[in-house]
């Protein structure tokens, strides 16, 4: 990195030099003999504590370098999220570095968008080009006409640059395409969000219900570890899913629900808990608001009625409700994470919050804890310029509970297409592949066509990079420092991501891109620090910690605070009434149902199946398929099809088919998993496969892309999220 680290290195020892200076030809061999990060070296092996970046969980990790080559990554035992054990993606993290598709150098497009014709340029030229276009957009349309999309803590410094530039349009698909409805539903009901990591106390629970959430296939590390502890402790698990998921195999009650009818089940559960007087009366007396109206409203939802809607036997509905009540308050319904399903998702999340409230479980051990976070002062930057125009992603606050912080990605796409309420002329994306994250790829392309500038900052040439004007190759998480990491959890902690090896080619870390771009935009004064270590050290020391200790350990724990009522926490609800809002005056005022109501979902036409998608344990979104280690584990997805259906149409397990959706969109070929483990009215596939970008040489057209097939979406009127489980597909066996 700099002369200082080299001198420091030379002082360490000759043996270290010999071990670290082996130079090979493979791309993962360190270019130089510099030692990076804070490291220990024995027998030619260096260990560097860092933070994983294979998903959003951000587990503490320790990377091993053997004879100058990245060898393996393990969990950091000090880390409360991983407890020293990473998930398969984290364990396979070194494949991020060896990915053969990696972007190596900055590129500028030479032909039409999407034609994959590029000119190799220097960083200086790429950033000058970007800054020049950004300044023109500011001059012609105003700074609000630029939008920045990002995912992960790697985006923090770039966010800073774009806020300094003057745009309020900072986005992440994690709100409107993922967990937004859950946060809004819970905030409207109990006055607080679920957050990330989820505040669910799975390890101490006695009963947990999962609605479509497939823990164990989504490898949210701490949650999966705790699930295993709950199983060991003999906790009752209730799984509600059209698919017999991995966790369904561990459940006491499996409810094979008809897709889209979860609300019917939830309201019926509420009715049973109230009618049979199984709810926590004392809790409701103290903390319930509008309970009587709620009780009257849900009395219409009987188990017999719910059977018709959901397909679940009345006895099973009653038994599972009683099971939840039996263990209250150490009993809960998991709020899920990716919950943008049907467009009524905030209301469904509210129903989940309300059934939980009947169990009196908020802030209780074995249900929902109150997270604590390590306090770290920010860096003293100059104030950002005030924006003069309101945000364009949600004009007139059409969606009253759209997220301010993460914004409506689909809203800004709409504004970009229409030019209303004002033109949006520039998009910059960081580590988010909007082509696969947003529903309806045609609309995304339409918006892209309106842009004067599209910049993609990523480690691989993803679909969105294929349409960019400028592509900026980033160093992987194993090659860079990032902002400090502190998540709200049961124990406060601070973690640091630090480089393990050098970038193999002409890639740069995000902080350097952000700082250099700011310089070219005449915003250099927003980056008063010389390099990221100066910034990190400043903040760590302001937090009262030793920077060298943090580098050495990777994770420092803070003082534990009470996280449950059982530990002395005081019960509190930050709602307008100060109570759990069974009746929401806030919703009523904006014209929405103050108490959640069931609405029948549209059913697939004859010969069609509802398209459901979800996670596989070895991949994250559409970003890890080209990691060679993870690709070796799962190189393509399969479409899950009920075995009786498969037989009836003459399809065998392992046959290739194509899927055609209701709008005539035909997928790439995909292997059939003919199985007992799914209902007959839906199909399922793991998200993120079937890459359509040719530059993704090793993953191009491997498996089918659900993103391509999700042409329809239903916007949630409460918060603007995109419900995506409303697409239907039929199966084509010809032309495969």
């Amino acid at each position, binding site marked *: 990195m700099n002369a200082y680290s080299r001198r420091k290195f030379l002082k360490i020892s000759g043996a270290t030099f010999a071990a670290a200076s082996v130079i090979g030809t493979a791309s993962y061999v360190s270019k130089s003999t510099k030692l990076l990060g804070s490291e220990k070296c024995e027998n030619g092996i260096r260990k560097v504590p860092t933070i994983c970046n294979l998903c959003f969980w951000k587990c503490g990790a320790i990377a091993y370098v053997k004879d100058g080559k990245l*060898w*393996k*990554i*393990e*969990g950091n035992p000090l880390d409360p999220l991983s407890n020293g*054990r*990473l*998930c*398969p993606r984290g*364990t*396979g993290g*070194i494949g991020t570095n060896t990915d053969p598709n990696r972007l190596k150098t900055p590129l500028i497009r030479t032909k039409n968008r999407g034609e994959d014709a590029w000119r190799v340029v220097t960083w200086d030229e790429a950033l000058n080009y970007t800054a020049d276009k950004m300044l023109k957009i500011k001059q012609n349309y105003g700074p609000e006409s630029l939008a920045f999309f990002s995912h992960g803590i790697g985006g923090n410094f770039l966010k800073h640059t774009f806020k300094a530039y003057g745009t309020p349009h900072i986005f992440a698909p994690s709100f409107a395409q993922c967990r937004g409805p859950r946060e809004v539903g819970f905030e409207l009901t109990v006055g607080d969000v679920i957050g990330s990591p989820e505040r669910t106390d799975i390890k101490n629970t006695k009963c947990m219900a999962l609605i479509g959430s497939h*823990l*164990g*296939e989504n*490898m949210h*590390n701490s949650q*999966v*570890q705790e*699930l*295993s*502890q709950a*199983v*060991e402790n003999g906790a009752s698990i209730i799984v509600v899913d059209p698919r*017999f998921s*991995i*966790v*369904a*195999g*561990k459940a006491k009650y*499996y409810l*094979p629900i008809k897709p889209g009818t979860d609300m019917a089940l939830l309201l019926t559960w509420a009715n049973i808990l109230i009618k049979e007087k199984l709810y926590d009366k004392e809790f409701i007396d103290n903390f319930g608001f509008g309970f009587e109206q709620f009780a009257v409203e849900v009395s219409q939802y009987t188990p017999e009625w719910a059977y018709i809607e959901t397909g679940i036997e009345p006895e099973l509905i009653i038994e599972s409700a009683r099971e939840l009540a039996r263990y209250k308050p150490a009993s809960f319904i998991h709020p899920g994470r990716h919950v943008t399903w049907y467009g009524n998702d905030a209301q469904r999340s509210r129903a989940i919050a309300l059934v939980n409230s009947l169990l009196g479980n908020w802030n209780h051990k074995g249900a929902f804890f109150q997270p604590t976070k390590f306090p770290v002062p920010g860096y003293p930057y100059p104030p950002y310029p005030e924006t003069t125009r309101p945000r364009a992603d949600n004009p007139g606050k059409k969606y009253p509970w759209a997220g301010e912080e993460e914004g409506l990605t689909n809203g800004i796409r709409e504004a970009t297409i229409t030019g209303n309420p004002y033109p949006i002329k520039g998009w910059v994306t960081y580590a988010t592949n909007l082509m696969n994250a947003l529903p309806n790829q045609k609309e995304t392309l339409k918006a892209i066509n309106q842009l004067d500038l599209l910049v993609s900052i990523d480690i691989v040439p993803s679909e969105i990079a294929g349409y960019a004007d400028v592509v900026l190759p980033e160093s992987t998480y194993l090659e860079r420092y990032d902002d400090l990491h502190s998540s709200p959890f049961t124990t406060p902690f601070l973690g640091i991501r630090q480089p393990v090896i050098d970038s193999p080619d002409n890639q740069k870390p995000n902080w350097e891109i952000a700082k250099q771009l700011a310089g070219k935009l005449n915003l250099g004064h927003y980056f008063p620090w010389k390099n990221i270590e100066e910034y990190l050290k400043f903040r760590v020391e302001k937090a009262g910690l030793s920077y060298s200790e943090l580098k050495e350990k990777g994770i420092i724990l803070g003082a534990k605070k009470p996280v449950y009522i059982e530990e002395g926490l005081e019960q509190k609800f930050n709602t307008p009434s100060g109570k759990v809002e069974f009746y929401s005056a806030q919703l009523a005022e904006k014209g929405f149902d103050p108490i959640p109501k069931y609405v029948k979902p549209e059913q697939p036409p004859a010969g069609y199946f509802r398209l459901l998608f979800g996670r596989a*344990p*070895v991949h994250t979104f559409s970003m890890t398929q080209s990691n*060679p*280690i*993870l690709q*070796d*584990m*799962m190189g393509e997805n399969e479409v899950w099809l*009920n075995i009786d259906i498969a037989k009836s149409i003459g399809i065998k397990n392992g046959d290739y088919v194509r899927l055609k959706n209701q709008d005539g969109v035909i997928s790439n070929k995909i292997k059939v998993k003919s*199985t*007992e*483990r*799914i*209902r007959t009215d839906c199909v399922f596939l793991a998200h993120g496969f079937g890459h359509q970008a040719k530059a993704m040489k090793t993953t191009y057209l491997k498996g089918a892309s659900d993103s391509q097939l999700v042409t329809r979406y239903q916007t949630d009127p409460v918060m603007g999220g995109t419900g995506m489980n409303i697409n239907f597909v039929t199966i084509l066996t010809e032309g495969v």
Partner: protein
Amino acid sequence: MARYGMVIDTKKCVGCMDCVVACKTENEVPDNLNRDWITYETKGKFPNLHQEIRSERCNQCDNPPCVYCCPTGASHISDVGGIILITSEKCIGCKACMAACPYDARFVHPDGYASKCTFCIQRTEKGEMPACVSVCPTYCMNFGDLEDMNSDVSELLQKRENHALKTEAGTKPQIYYLT
């Protein structure tokens, strides 16, 4: 002498393949080859299904046909906990061991010799757990001395119902699955 074995809790396992990935990096297993793998077994008719998920590998048999059939003595029973090992220098790549193994646990390494799970002997002889055990996010895998009645693995076998794989082959496999 110690007799190393594994006891794997199928109730806790989610089949995430972390064990497979950890083995690959720890032992630098070549692309498209694996020393361990996951088997999902589903029985019944939807929605009344029973599922068993198993992390599988060489069963480190007590009666190992792979050792008996090896013409060069490359396949052998080591002094470290009875782990079955292959001396790669002695192996001629004849594949007799692969044909003899009822578990299909062996493969030919691109460098020409037979290869398989070694219970991470480079770790276990130092008292560390095999990579797959140490990485498992569900803590479903247990490794230890089956001869020692007080070891975690022996206690689990006494407490819980369990089975080994293809015991009818008579190879005396030393990996047990808790059910």
